């Protein structure tokens, strides 16, 4: 039990993938202009991350390891992630067309989001079991969603603030992201 909580806190706060490991910065900057779409993107990424972590673990443990072809893992994981994203896209289009239209181009972009490949590769590297791998993916997704939602609400307020001309747009967003990253460094002492 403490193991589960440890993994979740560690991935969501201490080793946050966006602000501490600097993975998945493309959607972090791209989809954070409106809080609604940021939340949708966060949920979609969490879903894809959890599913692809579990599926990649199964592919690795029951296909690559027994046949001694672990060198295939990067390409096999990319294939797995692409399948999960494709499946999510088709299912979401049917079940929630509104979310589908909000996410638009960003949903297929999850495929090339480095956070997903990063999580499944770290899963293998750290030799997680199935439960740990799933939790790690879920925690990474939750951390991503949390940071994205926080950042989007910040940006919504910055949009109406009196920003100096030289800092307007992406510049102030990057400065904000940097300060947020420093703030998240403060969680480093939380576990151990």
């Amino acid at each position, binding site marked *: 039990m403490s193991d589960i909580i440890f993994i979740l806190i560690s991935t969501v706060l201490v080793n946050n993938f966006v602000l501490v490991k600097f993975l998945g910065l493309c959607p972090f900057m791209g989809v954070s202009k409106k809080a609604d779409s940021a939340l949708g993107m966060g949920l979609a990424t969490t879903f894809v991350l959890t599913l692809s972590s579990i599926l990649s673990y199964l592919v690795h443990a029951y296909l690559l390891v027994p046949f001694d072809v672990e060198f295939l893992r990067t390409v096999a994981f990319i294939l797995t992630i692409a*399948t999960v994203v494709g499946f999510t896209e088709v299912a979401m289009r049917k079940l929630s067309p509104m979310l589908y239209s909000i996410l638009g181009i960003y949903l297929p972009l999850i495929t090339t989001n480095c956070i997903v490949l990063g999580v499944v590769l770290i899963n293998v590297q750290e030799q997680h079991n199935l439960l740990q791998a799933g939790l790690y993916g879920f925690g990474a997704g939750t951390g991503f969603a949390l940071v994205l939602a926080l950042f989007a609400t910040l940006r919504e307020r910055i949009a109406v603030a009196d920003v100096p001309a030289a800092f307007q747009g992406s510049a102030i967003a990057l400065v904000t992201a940097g300060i947020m990253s420093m703030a998240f460094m403060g969680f480093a002492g939380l576990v151990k």
Partner: protein
Amino acid sequence: MNEFIALMLFTLLALGFGGLLAWAAKRFHIDGNPLIGQIDAILPQTQCAQCGYPGCKPYAEAIANDEADINLCVPGGETVVIMLSELTGKEIKPIEAEAKPKQFAFIKEEECIGCVKCIAACPVDAIIGAAKFTHTVITHECTGCELCIPVCPTDCIVMEEPSVTQRNWQWPKPVGPIGEGARK
């Protein structure tokens, strides 16, 4: 030997995933764009064609295909623009035709012959009257779509600006974008 196994394994994996996606595409198949239905449900269904499209459904299709802006629906007004913006994620813009003042149809009763053609043409049933009796317009129901004007055989329908009464008088709107000038 190991390379052969790797090749076979990867081919099988790709085939398996491909099969899964093909099944999903069949299972979650949808006819047409579901967004059109949702947009159509928001539009007021007056079929007044003031947006430049023959009706609400064609306009909904145009929005869904990114061919039309969301601010063309005059009867729907600001409410519809905001709802469409929430649905499609496009930015809220003021109604395009609002530059021209809101008008409503007025029937000159002495010229009306009671032909009921305008009653059939009115999309919001704002014209009352019967055959061989003079018709009149329910002013607050009229959307100003002008669809009744071309069908009138005696040209007795004119567009008029609403007269200012104690009931509908409003303060003039503030000039310029909101917040401008307040900051400086």
